[in-house]
């Protein structure tokens, strides 16, 4: 890739990441949510990979798989408790709902949105890496 593209991408990727984070974190007060935000985050990271920028902190496959799994474990435990509470008609943990419209409101919904965002982002990046590696291996 030419240096122009690389520099432009270097410049805009942080903004895309910030936008993705915004969409994820504000999923309960504005249009968006974990799935949309995670896709935007993944798009930014895949864009970097496309133009051949290797940052030190860029996610490798093992980190991605760990991220996906442990986000899902967290999600499963958080929501599993809620499911069981509903099924057994008891209340174990009370999550404060807060003022509707504020960032810290709506109980665990923002937390779940962040976890879903992480799952979606890392799963997409992982899929891209796997495909990319396999296709690159075929050419040589």
């Amino acid at each position, binding site marked *: 890739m030419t240096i122009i593209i690389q520099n432009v991408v270097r410049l805009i990727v942080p903004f895309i990441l910030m936008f993705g984070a915004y969409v994820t974190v504000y999923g309960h007060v*504005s249009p968006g*949510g974990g*799935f949309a935000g995670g896709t935007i985050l993944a798009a930014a990271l895949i864009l970097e990979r496309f133009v051949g920028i290797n940052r030190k902190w860029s996610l490798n496959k093992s980190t991605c798989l760990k991220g996906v799994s442990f986000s899902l474990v967290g999600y499963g435990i958080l929501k599993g408790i809620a499911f069981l509470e509903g099924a057994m008609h008891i209340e174990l943990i009370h999550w404060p709902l807060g003022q509707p419209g504020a960032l810290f409101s709506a109980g665990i919904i923002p937390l779940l949105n962040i976890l879903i965002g992480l799952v979606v982002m890392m799963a997409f990046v992982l899929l891209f890496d796997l*495909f990319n590696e*396999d*296709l690159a291996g*075929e050419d040589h």
Partner: protein
Amino acid sequence: MSILLDNFIEVGSIILFAIGFTTLLVHNNLIKKIIGLNIMDTSIFLYFISIGYIDEAHAPIFKEGVVQYVNPVPSGLMLTGIVVAVSVTAFALALTIRLHSIYGTLELDEIMKMREENI
């Protein structure tokens, strides 16, 4: 006849569904099959979301003073549907990559004809 024009989104999505279904069944190229699959899925999403539409209603984001909102249920369900379609597409593409690296072609009828020994 007028119902065909009034419900034009449903009619359009059913036609798209038929196109996708046929692409999936009749084409031999795997990539074209996957495209057909996606057309079919998208047409169902379109159909589902058109069920939830209400004329002159607002998007389902709570705002003071708004009375009529669009039905949020189809939107939520189709979010799930889209994720499922993406995952199936990813897996189908992975299989396509493997098939291409084994057989060197994407035409399904040629692949089915080839015996494993001949490779």
